[in-house]
């Protein structure tokens, strides 16, 4: 078959190409997600040892040529028995949820506003949302220290204006972590919401108003339900990275800021207990799979509704 002319490809040929094209992302997932995950899972079933690698092998070959599988669920039991981990998981989920909610409350009006502008203005505003991405994430989070410091710009300004007598404690607490999460992840909320709101048919707003809905009713009855896929996508895009966030709590959080990312770091690099660290991340993944499954079901239902 002549490959230069794409038009007269037979059904079979096309299907073969489609399969190959679809295979690529799966291959990517296999190599960069599934394989590392399998390794982490394997380590989580091992016992820690002092040495290199710092864990026991999962499969050992005996002299008689038989494979001996040496797996243990001790690490998981340990996670469930030690209240510390439960508290930290809950606290991570809470922090990520509050951060996601804050992103939604701030991001929705932003996306709505941008989507209702003239195309040229829209482009500039979107650019303003995206531009901070061109600077290193670490630097941007670090910059907040300069802002929130007790001798930082905000405190100095408030002191100079005479609004406060002593510097406020803005840094190294949960407040600073929320600022960090909202600041870092807001674009992940705004962009999917914008994409959704921008293609919404404005006749629907007029139709609702025409049928007797006030502006807030139009928003509640029409705009919000129709932007639900955007809301869910934005929330997942914020929630998933936020729950495992390490840099933000490490740089901006206080000693009492408990997040699973920091625990993971400590287990790996300070305690050098790789099996427990691996178990921590496997459980984290299990927690994240739930909202993703919910999202999948939402999408399936949307597709069924023909929207």
């Amino acid at each position: 078959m002549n490959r230069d002319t794409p038009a007269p490809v037979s059904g079979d040929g096309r299907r073969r190409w489609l399969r190959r094209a679809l295979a690529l992302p799966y291959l990517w997932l296999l190599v960069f997600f599934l394989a590392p995950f399998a390794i982490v899972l394997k380590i989580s079933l091992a016992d820690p040892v002092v040495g290199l690698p710092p864990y026991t092998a999962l499969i050992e070959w005996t002299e008689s040529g038989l494979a001996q599988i040496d797996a243990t669920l001790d690490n998981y039991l340990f996670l469930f028995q030690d209240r510390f981990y439960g508290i930290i998981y809950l606290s991570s989920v809470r922090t990520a949820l509050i951060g996601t909610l804050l992103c939604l409350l701030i991001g929705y009006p932003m996306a709505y506003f941008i989507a209702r502008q003239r195309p040229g203005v829209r482009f500039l505003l979107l650019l303003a949302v995206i531009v901070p991405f061109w600077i290193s994430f670490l630097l941007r989070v670090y910059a907040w220290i300069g802002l929130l410091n007790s001798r930082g710009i905000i405190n100095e300004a408030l002191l100079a204006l005479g609004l406060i007598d002593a510097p406020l404690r803005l840094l190294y607490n949960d407040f600073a972590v929320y600022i960090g999460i909202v600041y870092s992840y807001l674009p992940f909320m705004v962009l999917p919401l914008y994409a959704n709101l921008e293609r919404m048919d404005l006749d629907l707003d007029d139709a609702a108003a025409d049928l007797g809905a006030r502006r807030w009713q139009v928003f509640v009855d029409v705009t919000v339900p129709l932007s639900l896929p955007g809301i869910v996508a934005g929330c997942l895009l914020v929630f998933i990275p936020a729950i495992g966030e390490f840099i933000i709590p490490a740089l901006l959080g206080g000693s009492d800021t408990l997040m699973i990312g920091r625990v993971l770091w400590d287990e790996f690099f300070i305690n050098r207990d790789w099996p427990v660290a691996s178990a921590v991340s496997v459980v984290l993944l299990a927690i994240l799979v739930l909202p993703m499954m919910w999202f999948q079901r939402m999408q399936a239902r949307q597709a069924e509704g023909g929207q």
Partner: protein
Amino acid sequence: MAPENATAPTRPLVEIRDLSKRFGEIAAVDRVDLEVYPGELFAILGGSGSGKTTLLRLLAGFETPSAGRIVIDGADMTAVPPYRRPVNMMFQSYALFPHMTVAENVAYGLKKERLARAEIEERVGKMLKLVRLSELAGRKPAKLSGGESQRVALARALVKRPKLLLLDEPLAALDKKLREHTQFELMNLQYELGITFIVVTHDQDEAMTLSNRIAVMNAGRFEQIGTPGEVYEYPANRFVADFVGNINLLEVKVLEVGSGRVRVHCEAAGTALTVRGDAPPAGPRHWLAIRPEKIFIGKKRPADEGRAVLAGTVLDLGYFGNRSLYRVRLESGAVISVSATNRQRRAQHMMEWDDEVYLSWDEDSALVLSE
């Protein structure tokens, strides 16, 4: 001008006074006056950019006028928001809520009125029956055909029992066959419910058959308001004549005016012609206007009595079965379109290419128009 079906002397349902809407420098609607009477099926006919949709949106309350007043049923609506107007609109895109079923779409407006649930259910049920959609009550709009969507949109607006229903290109999204059927359905519904309709359309056939009065709109202004017959037979000016139906326009010089006759000289015809009618409106230029179907075509020269007669040759012809369309070139080179009904089956009456023919029309049939 009173409408045909208005009973007794009625006050207009809609009164538009000196209404303007400017977008920056451009006046989309430019100092428009209009009265629409209860029970009318009124069409606003215009091309794209004529301002007809803006006028409709002003009536619905989606746009705020730059100047002027809108009175509906005696109440000043100029500053009233859309959700408080006794007006509903059917959108060209239908604008059905995709996340609601057919029944929920129709019920939405009643829910906003905070009616009792039983009443809502009853009215929605009746309305769905009226537009023959009862079986589809539980469907989502994405699963509806074009005609079904159109009926849902109509039901959703009518269930509110508006005093005035606005329809934006109601038939434009339907295919040709469905369009004719739906047109009559719309007219029957309007008659049955007695609701005043204002239809905006770019389609002159739609406007002619659907409505009892037409406003021809151009560049934000009304060129003419009248019955379909008036607009077609007595176009107010060259624009209306050209926009509504087909017409031959020949530039003329007015020679004399008097006693119900206008004498003009027509360069293209190479002769002076008489047109029966009142004095033409003043203007720098004048045209003689004659519809193609009002011209007789034949190989024999007809009598001159009370008729204009011109000679020419057949340049082009088209056979449509029931009628034939001829393009005839006059000696001056001007081309005139003629539409002739094929009353006889025999072929010897038919004209062929390059045949020498005579065109004639009654002095009553032509008009003298200005710009």
